């Protein structure tokens, strides 16, 4: 019996153990050297990551409130990996920070929340996971304690998220009222698609949309990314977003299978708005973090297209894309974070002539941006291709060619997005600057993270293994 808990919840358990180790570290009298402490924590995260790959089985616990299987384990592993990368990249920033253990405790508790959310089989668990992954993040957003914008960002985040969870809860309460259950499996049988359920579904989806920044629920995103520490912004844009998208896919496919048309239409609209408006905003951004925020909004638009695929190809493509997105976006954020920690410069203009002094970093950023833009041979190309292909496949099964409109819009958006990615490339490689960023020295940790990202960006695409594996799990 106990072995079951240890076995099925091992990833959550590991996190909790690390959390408590950190808590004791903090409460202990000893003053730790920041560098050593960070290395120690990173090693813990590596162990956590490695541990996640073994002994994964299927099963459910707590009266079906918690379930796990290979796919969910994989999703959690992706998040673990992403967290590790974020942690490695924030080395320079954290080294001078007073609250290292607290930072990690908050970070890992949000990760734990995401795990609960992913493993949830019940709306209550989902809600708790969501809040657990949101509230500490708001605190994290404020971790640049001396900066005005950091607290502004945190304020915007907490208020927006509280409002959105209020709406989400209203939706959940109506769903509960009309079906009488919170369990996913029972819900899928009870839902009929009545008007009230549709309204509550929209509210429910808006809660998701808030987390993964679909337009018009995205407005907090850019402000929060810009104001938060880079590490938190990258965590928000990759891990938090990835987790909620994983959940979104499984909830849509499992719980709302009777309301396919409804959510297809909703996703159609959301993805059109998200891609287009996200891109239009990204066009004019000057701050790198803000720019990446809008670009990640646009990315979500593409992911939504993949979700409309309503097929195992679709959900595999989504998970696969998120894996790639982890590498690509973190590669980009990593460079921004490093430069920001070293020089405090974050605008696009600062990056003019970046190639002059920082060849390697430029290439890391460039390759990451290419991957985000979906340019071969980076994995981003494969990811986008599969997403759009999955989207294009939808209507084939339902007849008609309506979804090609969506694909066409997506393609036009790809061009716009290429424009702004190339804008950064142009700034780095081509533009002259009298005062280019000096050579930024990266230590071991960020370098490891860059290697992981670049290798990931290149290998994930070419080696079909990753996709095949995900597909086999989805199926």
């Amino acid at each position: 019996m106990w072995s079951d808990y240890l076995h099925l919840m091992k990833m959550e358990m590991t996190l909790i153990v690390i959390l408590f180790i950190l808590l004791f570290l903090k409460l202990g009298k000893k003053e730790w050297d920041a560098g050593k402490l960070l290395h120690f924590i990173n090693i813990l995260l590596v162990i956590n990551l490695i541990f996640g790959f073994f002994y994964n089985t299927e099963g459910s616990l707590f009266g079906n409130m918690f379930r796990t299987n290979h796919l969910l384990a994989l999703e959690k592993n992706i998040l673990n990996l992403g967290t590790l990368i974020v942690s490695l990249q924030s080395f320079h920033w954290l080294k001078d920070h007073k609250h290292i253990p607290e930072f990690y405790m908050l970070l890992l508790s949000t990760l734990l929340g995401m795990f609960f959310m992913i493993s949830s089989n019940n709306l209550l668990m989902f809600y708790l996971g969501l809040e657990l992954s949101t509230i500490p993040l708001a605190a994290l957003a404020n971790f640049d304690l001396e900066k005005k914008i950091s607290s502004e960002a945190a304020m915007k985040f907490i208020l927006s998220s509280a409002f959105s969870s209020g709406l989400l809860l209203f939706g959940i309460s109506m769903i509960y009222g009309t079906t009488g259950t919170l369990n996913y499996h029972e819900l899928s049988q009870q839902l009929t698609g009545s008007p009230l359920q549709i309204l509550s579904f929209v509210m429910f989806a808006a809660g998701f949309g808030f987390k993964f920044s679909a337009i018009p629920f995205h407005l907090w995103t850019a402000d929060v990314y810009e104001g938060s520490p880079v590490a938190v912004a990258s965590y928000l844009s990759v891990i938090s977003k990835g987790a909620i998208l994983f959940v979104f896919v499984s909830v849509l496919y499992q719980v709302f299978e009777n309301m396919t048309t409804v959510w297809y239409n909703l996703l159609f609209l959301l993805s059109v708005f998200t891609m287009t408006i996200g891109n239009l905003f990204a066009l004019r951004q000057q701050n790198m973090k803000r720019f990446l925020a809008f670009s990640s909004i646009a990315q979500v638009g593409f992911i939504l297209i993949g979700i409309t695929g309503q097929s195992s190809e679709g959900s595999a493509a989504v998970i696969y894309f998120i894996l790639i997105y982890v590498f690509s976006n973190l590669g980009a954020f990593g460079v921004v974070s490093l430069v920001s920690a070293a020089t405090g410069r974050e605008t696009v203009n600062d990056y003019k002539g970046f190639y002059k002094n920082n060849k390697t970093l430029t290439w890391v950023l460039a390759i990451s941006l290419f991957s985000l833009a979906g340019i071969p041979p980076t994995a981003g190309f494969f990811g986008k291709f599969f997403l759009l292909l999955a989207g294009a496949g939808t209507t084939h099964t339902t007849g008609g060619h309506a979804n090609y409109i969506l694909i066409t819009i997506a393609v036009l958006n790809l061009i716009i997005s290429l424009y702004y990615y190339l804008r950064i490339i142009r700034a780095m490689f081509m533009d002259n600057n009298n005062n280019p960023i000096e050579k930024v020295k990266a230590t071991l940790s960020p370098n490891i993270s860059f290697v992981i990202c670049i290798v990931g960006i290149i290998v994930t695409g070419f080696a079909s293994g990753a996709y095949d594996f995900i597909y086999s799990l989805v199926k």
Partner: protein
Amino acid sequence: MNLSLLLLVPLITLTALLFCKGLKQVRSISLFGSAVQFVLSFVLLYWYWKERASGNNAAFLFEENYVWYAPLHINYHIGVDGISVAMILLTSFVVLAGVLVSWKVETLSKEFFFLLLFLGVGAYGFFISLDLFTLFFFLELSVIPKYLLIGIWGSGKKEYSAMKLALMLMGGSGFVFIGLAGLFFNTNTVDGTHTFDILQIAQMHIPLEVQQIFFPFAFVGFGVFGALFPFHTWVPDGHSSAPTAASMFLAGISMKLGGYGCLRVATFLMPDAAQQYSWIIIILSCIAILYGAFATMMQTDLKYINAYSSVSHCGFVLLGIGILTKTAIAGAVMQMVSHGLMTALFFAAIGMIYDRTHTRQMAQLGGLLKVMPFISTVFVIVALCSLGLPGLSGFVAEVTIFMGSWERADAFYKVATIVACASIVVTAVYILRVVGKAIMGPLASKEFNLIKDAGWHEKLATGLLVVAIVAIGVAPFWLNNLIGPDADLIMKNISNGMVIK
């Protein structure tokens, strides 16, 4: 012959480049790599002929087929027919010449050669792909290196041009994607799944309604690459801002990706729609031919002249494809090869002139024959090729297209042919104008007296291309025999489609 070698050699070269230091190492490695590839493409030609001579009638030879993404039915499927062999030869010529021409690129030389050879990988891969996904992959692969090449090493309003080029080409490939996806989901293999495999799709009959929707996407998409009017505007700006080797590659190979794609994907796989939309294609390409030629007449910058003339010449490619007769298609392919070599050479010559005189404005040039006879001679040769002089490659291709297009009985096609023919006069006007002004005439500036003629690497580069142009022009039968049967095959597919309909 193992076709993957064609990708492997450049990839190994690229890897080797990563570890190089200094211009000398970099360029010698690049030269070596592209020379090996050059030889390899001739080996391919040899084996291809040998195989054909031994009676192998398969549509594609040296096929390799590995499953890549099984769930999506994506394979790494490669193989060549005569058309691809011709295009591969073209690519190896242009890449080798491009490396030689860039012998003295001092700024960021490693990156330069890396990107240049990277472009080559894209082209090789594109031409040998028999799987739509692989094809698309390689098509997009070649966009960004162009952007960087133009943006970093270019001249003039390079950032604008580079951006325009990248966006328009990306837009083109986006349309291609829609076409491919539509095609994919309307294929039904024996086991009830979809396929990206060109050979398999060619065997199927895609419903006409589907073709009607997706043919325009695919054709326009590739057409953007191939300078289809009115999507050609990236051509003049992109070509004129690019550094020499990049312009050579752009005009020489990159635009051919479009033509090849139109032929191999749009027309070959969706023959009925090709038939239906043929008139639009013809009108657009006729506009491109004549209008490109007239626009060229008004240009004053050498690179713009060649760029606009490329629009005009590539119009012939699309015309040949649009006409849909075997001869015209063969002509289109020959025009691709011919124009590829010719325009690469043209840009090489212009680049050399620019290097020495630091101007590309016709008004500031003159009498160059006196001070740099070699380069000027090359310039004249390529100019003559451009105006369709017999004995050089341009003539062969153009007359084949004319002959093929007159084959269609309809008066519409005849008028189109006449319009296209008329361009030979306009071409003569602008070509002789530029030759007369820049190469002949009195020496424009005393400073030009200090100019040195081409170095060995430049001579080698241009020599290679001249030899190729003359070889096609004097003995076109080998090229024609290489291409002809496959053009026939494409036509058969088209007529089969019509029969079924």
